[in-house]
């Protein structure tokens, strides 16, 4: 079997799994995991592929969620348009935040994105339209394209799955495009990329905005799934969660964040009933262990293990 054939087999298997899953697993849980998987993939566009650690990505996720919720509930916009509105809002915010932070590198960049997202958090805390601590509730799921009724969990699942696939494939295309190559070059050695004549800041900005927009798409979809948006969606703990998902799953591959997202969402939902507030301790411990021992993440480790066992392969 050639590499390509096994690859397509793998993709096919995952696709089938994705299509069958709601029969066996609570669809709302799956949809939540898919939204976070998209969020983590979007985040990884910046971290794994451009080398920028944004510690405030929840700002985009949450902004899109609030805008989608508001336009759907109060302005009566149809669901598809509401999601688009949310994504657009996240994109716009990405331009603003990116503009302020992109000139700085490394840790400075992380701190600035963190602080800016906190500013956004406090804005949402005060703004009346968000409902503050009570949150934006009872967002109508509505209908997609006037016909598909999204109130049914199963139907909505397939829509969410489609959105996830769209985002995922977009990221895939971006990474394997010339633009993606420049991003990787910037991650590897920024001064060299500059010396080669690339306008590094412009590329970083584009990557940032794309990442913000896709994170927004994830947030907008999540709002429709839960019919609910609260301050948790813009909280810095959520930003931390997505960093962990990417780190745990593996920054070096496109599947890493997906694996990480599913792992963390499962962990949090399974454990929070049993150990309550110890969940944060466990999450923190996973962070520590990953940083010290598993920097390549689950997927990275599997790839590494495979290479060691089988030896180099075409």
């Amino acid at each position, binding site marked *: 079997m050639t590499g390509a054939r096994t690859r397509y087999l793998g993709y096919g298997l995952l696709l089938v799994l994705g299509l069958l899953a709601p029969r066996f697993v609570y669809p709302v849980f799956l949809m939540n995991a898919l939204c976070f998987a998209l969020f983590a993939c979007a985040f990884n566009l910046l971290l794994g592929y451009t080398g920028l*650690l944004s*510690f405030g990505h929840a700002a985009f996720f949450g902004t899109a969620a609030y805008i989608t919720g508001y336009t759907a509930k109060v302005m009566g916009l149809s669901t598809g348009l509401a999601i688009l509105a949310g994504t657009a809002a996240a994109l716009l915010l990405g331009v603003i935040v990116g503009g*302020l*932070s992109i*000139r*700085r590198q*490394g*840790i*400075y960049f*992380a*701190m*600035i994105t*963190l*602080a*800016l997202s*906190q*500013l956004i958090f*406090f*804005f949402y*805390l*005060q703004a009346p339209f968000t409902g503050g601590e009570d949150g934006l509730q009872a967002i109508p799921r509505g209908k997609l394209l006037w016909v598909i009724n999204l109130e049914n969990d199963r139907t909505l699942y397939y829509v969410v799955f489609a959105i996830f696939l769209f985002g995922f494939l977009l990221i895939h295309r971006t990474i394997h495009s010339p633009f993606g190559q420049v991003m990787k070059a910037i991650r590897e050695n920024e001064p060299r990329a500059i010396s080669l004549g690339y306008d590094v800041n412009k590329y970083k900005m584009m990557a940032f905005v794309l990442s913000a927009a896709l994170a927004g798409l994830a947030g907008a979809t999540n709002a429709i799934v839960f019919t609910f948006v609260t301050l948790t969606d813009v909280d*810095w703990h959520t930003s*931390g969660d997505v*960093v962990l998902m990417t*780190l745990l799953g593996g920054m070096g591959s496109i599947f890493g964040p997906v694996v990480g997202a599913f792992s963390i969402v499962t962990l949090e939902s399974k454990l929070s009933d049993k150990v*309550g*507030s*110890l*969940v*944060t*301790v*466990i*999450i*923190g*411990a*996973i*962070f*520590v262990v*990953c*940083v*010290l021992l598993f*920097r390549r993440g689950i997927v990275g480790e599997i790839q590494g293990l495979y290479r060691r066992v089988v030896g180099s392969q075409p």
Partner: protein
Amino acid sequence: MTEIFGVPIAALFGQLVLGLVNGCFYAMLSLGLAIIFGMLNIINFAHGALYMMGAVFTWFLLSTWNISWWWALLLAPLAVAIFGMVVERVFLKRLYKVDPLYGLLLTFGLALVIEGLFRYKYGVSGLPYGIPEIFQGALNLGFMFLPKYRAIVVGATLLVCFTTWFVIERTQLGAYLRAGTENPPLVQAFGINVPAMITLTYAIGVGLAGLAGVLAAPTLQVSPLMGSNLIIVVFAVVVIGGMGSILGSILTGLGLGLIEGLTKVFYSQASNTVVFMIMALVLLVRPAGLFGRER
């Protein structure tokens, strides 16, 4: 005249004092962060959790062994510093050769673990800690009431901050510390134990956080969440002041505390966000921070 701009003088000065007190905590915490970052190139996300540990330890000393606040002033920072040394030796040491972002992530994870454990043990509602008898009550200064304890906090902070600055910038020990982190191999060649200096630096940084915790215990709520409420504002302070600048972080911390207090009087809706807005402004105008050096 009892009003300025429509605000009663007592209220204005009251808020300014509160703001100044907050500024003291910002200053002491950002001082610790600046020391650790300036010299070790590590962003210590766990700083808030260590500050909380200082406060909880203070409470613990009083409630379990009836050890007074005065002793806690000495013991708590010491305990936190020792804990910090262990953390540095066991965890941080392994990350010096890797991208500094991993240091940030590790300390972030540590912060979650520490806070989670304390939250699990002590809940969230807060542990009661009273003001030491001598400092209870307020001085009537005529134009305002000055709570005695808060005045002590301001005094103690200024003392500690400027002493620390002095030690680091003006004494030989400080020179060793600064040199040891700027060029470890060279300094090591001179026979100075650089790894020990690094551990000491981290210990001093977190010891300051612990001391801030002791000072905070009588006034603020001693709760496992007290660190995470504060840490991001402190980060913003460090960014505004200029990462790595020790004097910068002290002055910026105090200044921002005052500005926050003023904002509460005139436009209280913005008081949470004013620090971040200033940060955004500073980033546009002076990206290296007010006192910072480009690194």
